[in-house]
């Protein structure tokens, strides 16, 4: 037999059979190549994907750390509440987008159906609060105040409530010990947003969908430390989610506690006294405007002079920080952010700025010394100072004759500083400034820390403003168009000002420098800047960053990370000048000084008090009251917007705070048993290994306890003045 077939295998068929064979084997090669590509070349990628595919992560959120006061009293902690949450993912699967379920839920919870639906809708630019600005895949809390009965009803008839859960959950709480709300300082939390999750994805503290994030105050500054790290247990699951195996478990790290230098008792006193002072002046009539004082806002800072640590910080108006817990209600949100709300979320101690007024004179006195004017030389305190055809008067046009700079502080004499400011302006070249102009007044203001952040450990501190040449120029460039449009020669006051500003608003004029020398004009300062500067005078010249956080302590108390006081500069004057300033400020509370009438009976020999009053004029508003004081231990600064004079509006309140700290009564007798904090708190609170925190009990502040005669009316305000002290206004 032959190998060659006789029929059926024409060359055409033969060739085509070869073609078929080639085609077939190229198909098989393709498969082999693709298999190699998937398994060998890209195998790792798919292995990872496979792992994430069948691994289900169960997250146990870390309990957020507490914020403690200096002695361990919790200002912010957690409590277990029954939280009812709705899963949007489940609700959206229903035909009516879950309306029926939410309505039923509202019935059980005793809420309005609309309120429930508002809470679970997602926030966008058009949606007003309340709405959910967290992840849409995370259960959205409807209420955290469910009763056990409500939770049971939801759980027992779970078929009526698909997508609704009722679980005990740790919920943030702001207990306000001794009525110390500490609102703006503590800040608040809100759910993490998708953007933040993306941003923090590759950092060492990634966010979970269920995370709450600090939005302001200490909650924001120390968010990372407080938040800890959620525990994650990974389970191997099949497609239907049945657990096959537990693969790995990361127990997570509970959030650390942040110990602050705040003393809850002092905080409560500060809050009470600030509020009381504002209430008092609202009952008084402003002699300039003829209306009662508005006292629309106020702030007080109590700081340790030698460290910059903040013992108390209050801002009015304030709010109850618990309003944020579990999603804020529409009413509450409006109340906090509305145009008519007067913005209680603002921490005026670091975010409120106003012209300084006479508390600025320590800067001017220092600037004069730097410019070569000896502190103890005599400068004429005339009743008014004339420049060209303008006359700048001392308040009440009272003169004191030739006095030292120390006495100029004591009497708060304007004309001494007008003259110095004007002379320096002329020496710098006046309207044709020298190239190397000293600008001592402006430079000294900056060196005192004004015009820039103090570095306080709270977010969104504002800088205030030092209206020097550069600022004038840039401000003019930014505004000249609108000024030139609005300005009219010989028009109304505003039009005339605009007209002048349009023409030469970029020039630093004599008028500006004269005003600046007494802290008026365009200068703006914040209470915390002022406190930092006065504390520096008290401690010999160091400008400390105001700090509230004192230590970060692990929940078992074992790891303690102290936050040391940090300085950001020194006062630009020598020790002698600081001593001179100190002496001058001391004389302010002594007979003849502008604050003396507020410190009757003060044990000046035992606890030397230094003070400076300030009454800043704000165009179109009532005057701002400033009061800056310090002892060797503490610096207290208080301000009340549209509150009248420095000593008048803020004086009694500040003294009451000192009385509480040192245990003094209104006649100056010290009772150390009653003293809240005669010396700054040094030791950190003890946190036991089991997590318990030893904290003393707090009794609310009783203002009457400081009165020798309990029947006497609390002193306050400007009203009880029978006759004003010699110079009660600066």
């Amino acid at each position, binding site marked *: *037999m032959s190998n060659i077939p006789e029929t059926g*295998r024409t060359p*055409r068929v033969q060739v*085509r059979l070869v073609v*078929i064979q080639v085609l077939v084997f190229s198909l098989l090669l393709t498969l082999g190549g*693709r298999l190699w590509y998937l*398994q060998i070349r890209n195998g790792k990628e798919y292995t990872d994907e496979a*792992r994430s595919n*069948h691994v289900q992560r169960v997250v146990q959120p870390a309990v957020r750390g507490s914020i403690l006061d200096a002695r361990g009293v919790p200002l912010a902690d957690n409590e277990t509440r029954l939280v009812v949450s709705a899963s949007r993912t489940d609700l959206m699967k229903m035909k009516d987008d879950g309306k029926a379920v939410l309505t039923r839920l509202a019935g059980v919870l005793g809420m309005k159906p609309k309120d429930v639906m508002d809470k679970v809708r997602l926030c966008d630019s058009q949606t007003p609060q309340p709405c959910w600005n967290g992840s849409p895949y995370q259960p959205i809390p409807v209420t955290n105040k469910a009763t056990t009965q409500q939770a049971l009803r939801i759980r027992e008839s779970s078929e009526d409530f698909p997508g609704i859960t009722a679980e005990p959950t740790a919920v943030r709480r702001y207990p306000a010990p001794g009525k110390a709300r500490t609102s703006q300082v503590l800040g608040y939390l809100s759910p993490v947003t998708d953007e933040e999750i993306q941003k923090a994805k590759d950092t060492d503290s990634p966010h979970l969908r269920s995370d709450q994030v600090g939005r302001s105050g200490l909650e924001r500054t120390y968010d990372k430390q407080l938040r800890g790290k959620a525990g994650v247990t990974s389970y*191997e699951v099949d497609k239907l989610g049945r657990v096959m195996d537990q693969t790995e478990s990361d127990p997570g790290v509970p959030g650390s506690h942040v110990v602050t230098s705040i003393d809850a008792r002092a905080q409560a006193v500060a809050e009470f006294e600030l509020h009381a002072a504002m209430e008092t002046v609202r009952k008084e009539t402003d002699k300039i405007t003829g209306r009662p004082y508005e006292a629309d806002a106020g702030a007080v800072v109590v700081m340790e002079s030698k460290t910059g640590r903040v013992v108390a910080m209050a801002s009015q108006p304030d709010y109850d920080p618990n309003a944020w817990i579990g999603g804020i209600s529409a009413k509450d949100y409006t109340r906090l952010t509305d145009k008519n709300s007067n913005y209680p979320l603002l921490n005026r101690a670091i975010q409120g700025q106003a012209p300084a007024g006479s508390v600025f004179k320590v800067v001017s006195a220092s600037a004069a010394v730097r410019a070569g004017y000896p502190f103890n030389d005599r400068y004429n305190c005339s009743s008014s100072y004339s420049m060209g055809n303008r006359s700048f008067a001392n308040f009440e046009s009272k003169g004191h004759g030739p006095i030292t700079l120390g006495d100029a502080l004591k009497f708060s004499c304007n004309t001494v500083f007008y003259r110095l400011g004007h002379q320096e302006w002329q020496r710098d070249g006046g309207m044709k400034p020298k190239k190397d102009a000293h600008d001592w007044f402006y430079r000294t203001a900056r060196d005192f820390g004004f015009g820039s952040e103090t570095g306080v450990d709270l977010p969104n501190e504002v800088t205030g403003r030092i209206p020097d040449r550069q600022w004038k120029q840039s401000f003019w460039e930014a505004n000249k168009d609108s000024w030139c449009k609005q300005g009219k020669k010989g028009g109304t006051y505003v039009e005339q000002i605009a007209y002048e500003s349009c023409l030469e608003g970029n020039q630093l004029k004599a008028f500006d420098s004269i005003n600046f020398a007494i802290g008026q004009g365009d200068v703006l300062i914040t209470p915390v800047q002022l406190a930092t500067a006065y504390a520096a005078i008290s401690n010999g010249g160091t400008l400390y960053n105001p700090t509230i956080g004192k230590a970060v302590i692990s929940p078992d108390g074992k790891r303690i990370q102290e936050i040391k006081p940090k300085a950001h500069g020194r006062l630009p004057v020598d020790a002698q000048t600081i001593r001179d300033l100190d002496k001058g400020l001391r004389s302010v509370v002594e007979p003849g000084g502008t604050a003396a009438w507020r410190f009757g009976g003060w044990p000046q020999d035992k606890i030397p008090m230094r003070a400076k009053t300030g009454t800043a004029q704000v165009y179109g508003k009532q005057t701002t009251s400033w009061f800056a004081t310090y002892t060797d231990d503490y610096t207290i600064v208080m301000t009340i917007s549209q509150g009248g004079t420095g000593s008048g509006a803020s004086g009694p309140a500040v003294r009451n705070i000192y009385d509480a700290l040192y245990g003094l009564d209104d006649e100056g007798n010290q009772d150390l048993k009653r003293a809240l904090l005669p010396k700054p708190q040094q030791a950190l609170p003890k946190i036991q290994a089991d997590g318990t925190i030893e904290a003393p009990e707090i009794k609310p502040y009783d203002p009457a306890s400081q009165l020798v005669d309990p029947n006497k009316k609390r002193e306050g305000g400007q009203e009880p003045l029978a006759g004003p002290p010699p110079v009660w206004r600066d």
Partner: protein
Amino acid sequence: MTAPHGFSVSRYAPERGPLAKLTARDSVLRRLDWPILLSSIALSLLGALLVWSATRGRTELNQGDPYYFLLRHLLNTGIGLVLMMGTVWLGHRTLRGAVPVLYGISIVLILAVLTPLGATINGAHAWIVIGGGFSLQPSEFVKITIILIMAVLLAARVDAGDQIHPDHGTVAKALLLAALPMGIVMLMPDLGSVMVMAVIVLGVLLASGASNRWVIGLIAAGITGAVLVAALGVLDEYQINRFAAFANPELDPAGVGYNTNQARIAIGSGGLYGAGLFNGHQTSGQFVPEQQTDFIFSVAGEELGFLGGGLIIVLLGVILWRACRIARETTELYGTIVAAGIIAWFAFQSFENIGMALGIMPVAGLPLPFVSYGGSSMFAVWVAIGLLQSIRVQRPMTA
């Protein structure tokens, strides 16, 4: 002593005992193509393991018996082997006379699918449920009868020596005979099977020596048909979805693209050696749907790795390589055409099945020959192996 196929070589040989007969140089056993047979058995057994791994945890399918599908697959393989032996024993030439009858029966069966006797599985109304857990997919057998009826028609006059190549009339008739069952299967709609049949027709036409114009015309018609089908909306949504998912699996990873994505993850995670049988997370986690049938290759990829997946491709390669040899070496055009049809069928179906698991082909519900679970497919491919063996057994001795 003549064999029932009527082609006897023993006629020239002396009488021998039964054992000697089996082992003799010219015996049927010795003349079988053993590489094809062994590769087919190896693929079937490998398939049994993979089917077992894919189904042992699927209690909703295996009625609580983890060995259910393993045993059924082995049983199907056994029945397939018997069918192959029967085919060899009958011989493809004997069957040649019965082809019109077989063709007729297969047409009746696929028509029956369209009646209430038929059942729908995975969107395709392609099944006849026999009862007792058995069901039949007649389109699998139609693949054989299309090959046979076309081969009979196209080879008749060439093998008789009347023509060198089949004439246009014969080709047209053969195409019509193929188009009839394809049309019916299209109505089910079982698009995957229609695609396989179209490729079979192309292979048959190529091997028959039909004019190039027919071949080119057929390819053009196929492309036009595909475009028309897509444009006229003849396809159901699920079919378009399957195609869309192939083109872009990330389109809808939870829906349409899910199958291919999960299969690809399973295979990709296998690496060189695989996770080991029963150790595939994707498989035991049941992330890949239809894993014992359409996506059986993903089990191999994940649990046996590149080596296991490669082995399947190599074994298929051996079968196709030997089949090509059989097609080339047979003396009759009939045998050549039948072998070429089977090559086209196996090659395309394997490429499509593995290709979709690897994400380079659109999803079509086609089984992987020998490996996928499924009686009808298993029987059909073993009958095809029987035909190949018969063509080889009945070819002239080469040495």
